[in-house]
C-alpha cells in the first residue's frame, strides 16, 4: 500500500454500486463518456448451508461487477448518466465531502486544474434573491392586469444620442432629421448570450438558432442570439435569419475570415456586433478550446487546424488595448456601412465604471452597448482558479455603472446589458426584472440555455466537464456519438417554451408595479431584506 497514490476517498465523486440489483446489461459503462467506470470482477466469499441441519460451507466465487476507476484522467464527474440509463437503480454517483481531487491533480501533474461550468464557491446565497419587488401599486396607481393590458418589452441596442446631438431642423413646425445617425435596434430585453460553435456542439448551437428564429417569427418575441467567438455556418450567414444574430469578435478573431468572405452574399445585416474584451466566468483569461473539441466542421468554420485554440487574454494592439478596440469599433462600424450597432462586452470588474465612464464620454458615438458580464456565468473551459477565485458579481457593478451614467446625466446613451448567473435558480424573469430596475436595459443569458437543453452540471461540482469534449449530454462536445444524445428539435422547443413562460412572468412583475413599459432604473420598485445590499444598491431596506 502506498499512501501517496490516488485513492477513492480523494475523488470528487464516488460510485455507489449495488451488485444485487445489477443485471450486467452494460448500459452504464457504455454511457459513461469519461471511462470512469468499467466492468470488472470481484472475488466473493459466501457461507452456505444446504442440509437439514446447519452444515456451513465456505464458497468462493468470482462475480462480475461495475467498478470505479481511480485515475486523474478517467474519473467520475458526478454527471449521473449511469444512474439515468440504469434500468434497475443499481448505480449512482455520490458526492464525496472529503474530496481532495484538484489538490492531488496539481501535486501529481504540476499543472493547474482545469474544468468547465461556473464558479463553485459561495454559490448558495445570491444578492438577487435578497431583493424583492416591494412596491406594489394599489390605490393611487392601480396595478395592471398582466393578461389584459398590453406591455411593451423592448430594449435599445445601439448608441443613443442626447437630443442636442441629434441633427434636427424644423419644417412647418415638424422636426426632421438631417443625417444618418448611429443605428439603434429595438429588441427583446434578453439576449441569448455568446456561446460559440466549438464550445457548444453544432447541434446545440443550431437548436439555439432555431429557437431564436422561431421566437421571432412565430412567437412575437424579438429575441437576439449572439454567436460567441467562433463564427457561424455560412448557410446561416447567407440566410435572412442573420438579422436575428449578433456576431461576436474576440481576441482570437476566430471565424471572421469566413464572415468577411461571406459579406457580399449576405441578404440581411446582422443584428449587431459584440466586441468581447472579457467574460465574467474567467475574467482576464482568454477563451480556450481544446484540440479534442476542434472537429472537422469547427476547423472549417474557424479556418484553423486541429489544435488547442487559445484566444489571447486581451486584444493585441501596438500601444494600448483601448486603441486597438477603438480601431476595431471603427472598422466594424465601417464594414457594415455604419448600419449595424457595435457593442462591447467586458467582465464585471472594479474598473468597470471607469471603462463605462470613458465610453460615455467618447466623442465618436460608436459604442452601441455595454455588456457587463459578472461572475457566476459559465464557460466551456477554464482554470479552476480563475473560475473560483476571479471575478466580480454583476449586480452592484451594474448599479455602479448606471449611477455613474446618472452622475454624468448620460443614462441610456450607451445601453447597459448585464449577465453572469442570470436565471441561476431557474427563474430568468425575476433576475432580469431586478437587473432592469437597477438600471440595465436588458440582460443576456447563456448557461441557463444549456440547462434547459439538458445540461446536468451545477455549481456544486456536478459534471463541470465542458472542457473535456466529452459532455455526457451532447451539449459541449463535438464527439459524433455523444452529440446524438441531443434532440435538436426538442431543445429548440424547450427553449421557445421557456421564453414564452419568461415573457409571461416578466409581465407578472410589471403589472403589480403598474408599468406597461420596462421600468429601466426604477429602483424604487425594489426592496432588500439585507441592509448591506440595500445600502450598496441604493434601494430601500425592508424587514
Amino acid at each position, binding site marked *: 500500500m502506498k499512501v501517496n497514490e490516488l485513492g477513492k476517498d480523494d475523488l470528487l465523486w464516488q460510485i455507489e454500486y449495488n451488485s444485487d440489483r445489477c443485471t450486467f446489461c452494460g448500459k452504464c459503462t457504455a454511457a459513461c463518456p469519461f471511462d470512469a467506470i468499467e466492468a470488472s470482477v470481484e472475488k466473493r466469499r459466501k457461507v452456505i448451508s444446504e442440509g437439514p441441519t446447519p452444515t456451513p460451507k465456505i464458497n468462493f466465487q468470482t462475480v462480475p461487477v461495475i467498478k470505479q476507476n481511480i485515475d486523474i484522467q478517467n474519473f467520475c464527474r458526478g454527471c449521473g448518466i449511469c444512474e439515468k440509463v440504469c434500468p434497475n437503480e443499481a448505480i449512482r454517483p455520490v458526492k464525496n465531502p472529503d474530496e481532495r481531487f484538484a489538490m492531488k491533480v496539481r501535486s501529481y501533474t504540476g499543472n493547474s486544474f482545469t474544468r468547465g461550468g461556473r464558479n463553485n464557491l459561495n454559490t448558495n446565497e445570491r444578492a438577487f434573491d435578497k431583493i424583492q419587488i416591494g412596491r406594489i401599486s394599489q390605490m*393611487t*396607481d392601480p396595478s*395592471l392586469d398582466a393578461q389584459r393590458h398590453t406591455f411593451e418589452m423592448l430594449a435599445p441596442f445601439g448608441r443613443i444620442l442626447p437630443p442636442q446631438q441629434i441633427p434636427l431642423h424644423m419644417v412647418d413646425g415638424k422636426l426632421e432629421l438631417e443625417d444618418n*445617425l448611429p443605428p439603434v435596434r429595438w429588441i427583446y430585453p434578453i439576449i441569448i448570450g455568446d456561446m460559440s460553435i466549438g464550445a457548444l456542439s453544432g447541434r446545440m448551437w443550431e437548436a439555439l438558432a432555431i429557437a431564436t428564429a422561431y421566437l421571432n417569427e412565430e412567437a412575437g418575441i424579438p429575441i437576439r442570439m449572439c454567436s460567441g467567438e467562433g463564427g457561424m455556418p455560412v448557410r446561416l450567414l447567407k440566410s435572412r435569419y442573420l438579422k436575428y444574430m449578433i456576431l461576436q469578435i474576440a481576441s482570437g478573431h476566430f471565424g471572421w475570415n469566413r464572415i468577411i468572405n461571406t459579406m457580399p452574399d449576405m441578404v440581411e445585416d446582422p443584428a449587431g456586433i459584440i466586441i468581447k474584451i472579457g467574460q465574467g466566468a474567467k475574467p482576464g483569461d482568454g477563451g480556450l478550446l481544446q484540440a479534442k473539441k476542434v472537429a472537422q466542421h469547427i476547423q472549417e468554420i474557424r479556418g484553423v487546424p486541429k489544435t488547442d485554440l487559445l484566444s489571447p487574454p486581451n486584444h493585441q494592439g501596438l500601444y494600448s488595448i483601448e486603441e486597438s478596440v477603438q480601431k476595431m469599433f471603427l472598422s466594424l462600424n465601417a464594414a457594415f456601412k455604419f448600419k449595424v450597432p457595435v457593442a462591447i462586452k467586458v467582465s464585471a470588474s472594479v474598473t468597470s465604471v471607469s471603462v463605462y465612464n470613458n465610453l460615455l464620454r467618447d466623442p465618436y458615438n460608436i459604442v452601441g452597448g455595454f455588456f457587463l458580464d459578472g461572475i457566476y456565468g459559465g464557460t466551456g473551459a477554464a482554470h479552476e482558479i480563475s473560475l473560483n477565485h476571479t471575478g466580480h458579481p454583476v449586480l452592484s457593478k451594474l448599479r455602479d455603472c448606471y449611477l455613474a451614467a446618472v452622475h454624468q446625466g448620460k443614462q441610456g446613451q450607451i445601453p447597459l446589458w448585464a449577465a453572469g448567473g442570470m436565471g441561476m435558480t431557474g427563474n430568468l424573469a425575476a433576475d432580469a426584472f431586478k437587473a432592469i430596475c437597477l438600471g440595465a436595459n436588458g440582460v443576456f443569458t447563456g448557461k441557463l440555455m444549456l440547462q434547459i437543453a439538458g445540461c446536468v452540471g451545477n455549481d456544486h461540482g456536478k459534471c463541470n466537464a465542458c472542457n473535456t469534449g466529452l459532455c455526457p449530454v451532447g451539449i459541449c462536445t463535438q464527439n459524433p456519438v455523444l452529440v446524438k444524445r441531443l434532440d435538436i428539435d426538442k431543445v429548440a422547443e424547450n427553449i421557445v417554451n421557456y421564453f414564452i413562460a419568461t415573457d409571461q412572468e416578466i409581465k407578472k412583475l410589471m403589472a403589480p408595479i403598474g408599468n406597461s413599459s420596462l*421600468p429601466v432604473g*426604477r429602483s424604487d420598485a425594489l426592496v432588500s431584506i439585507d441592509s448591506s445590499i440595500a445600502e450598496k444598491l441604493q434601494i430601500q431596506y425592508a424587514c
Partner: protein
Amino acid sequence: MCRIGAIKSKNYMHPSKALLLMRSQQKGHDNSGFAMVMQDLGGIFEDYKDLPILSMACTDEGLNIADNILAEEGFLRVMQWCPETNPDPKLIIETMPHYLFQVLQYPKAFKYATPEEKEDLLINTRLRLRKALEVDEEGYVYSFWPDVITLKEIGDPKDIGTYFGLWKESKDFAAKIITAQCRQNTNYDIVRYAAHPFFLQGYTSLANGENTFYEKNKLFQKKLYKGYVGFESDSQCFLYTLHYLNKVLKWPLHYYKHIITPLPYDEILNRKDEKILLKIKESLAHLEINGPNTIISTMPDGTVFTCCDSKKLRPVVIGSTDETVVITSEVTGINEILPERNWEEDIYPHERETVVINNDMKIERWQQ
C-alpha cells in the same frame, strides 16, 4: 384622487371662479391645501405686464432676507400687494406671517439685456431666494416672472379662500388664465412647494395621479437644467419635461406626448415620421411616464392644454363657451361655472390625445 382645474377666458376672471370650479369636486379634497397660478393678469397688475412679479410667503426674517437679496441683485420695487386676510381660529389653515406679491423693476445693468439674459436673471434670483429662505424655513418663493402670481397654502381650500377673501369677487384681482388644485401631493410630506400647480419660466403644470416613473424622470431631469429643483412632488417632472421640450430644446408642443407617452415601437414603424419618433423615444426614454396621470399645462404664450398617460387611468373633461374654456377632473365643476354651455360639446379626451386651447378660445384636438 386629486381634482385639478384650469379656466381660460377672453375676459379677466376672479379666483372665486376657481374655488367654485373645485368646490363641487370636494370629495377629492383632504384639507391638505389649495394652490393656484394666475397668468395674464388684470386688475391692479394689468399695468405691469412686462415686469417680474415675486410671489412669496414668508416670516419677518424671511422678508428681510428676501429684501436684502433683491436689493443686492439690483431690483427695485415698483408695487407691492398683500392680500387682506381674515384670521379666524375656526379656519383650517396653516398661515405664514406674510404673503407678498411684489412687482419689481429689472436692475439697471439689465436695461439693454436680451430677453434671455433677463429670464436667466429671474431664475437665478428665484433659486437664490429659495435657497436662502430654505435654511430656517423662513419663506417660500413660488414664482418670479412677469404677469404671473402664485398662491399656495396648507389647509381646507374653502377656509383658505375665506382667509384670503377669495370668495368675494373683485375686479382688482383677476386673470385670464387660472389653474388650481385643492389638494397637494399627499404621498409625500405636506409642504408648500409640493402643491400644484408648479411654475417655471412661463410654464405651469398641474396633474393628478401618480407618476410611477418619478425615480427615473427625476434622476434624468436633475442634470438637464438648473431650474429643475425641488422634486417635492412626483408631478413636478411633467412641468420640467414640458419646459425642457419647449424652452430648452425649442421643440413644438405636439412632441410632448411623443416624449411622455411614446407610441409602441410597432406603431412608430407604420408612421411617416418614423425616424424622428424613434429618435425621440430613444433619446428621451428617461422622460417617459407610465401613468396614471392627467396633466393640465399652460404655455408662456397663454396656450392651455391637457393630456393623459397612455393607459389613461385618470379622468378629465373640457367644457366651453365662446368666451371661456374650462378643463377639470369632473364635469360637475364645469356645470358649476359654465351652466349655460352646450354640454354636448364637452370633450373627454382619450389616451393619445392632446386638447389644446389657444388664445382665441379655439379648441384643437391633436392626435398623437
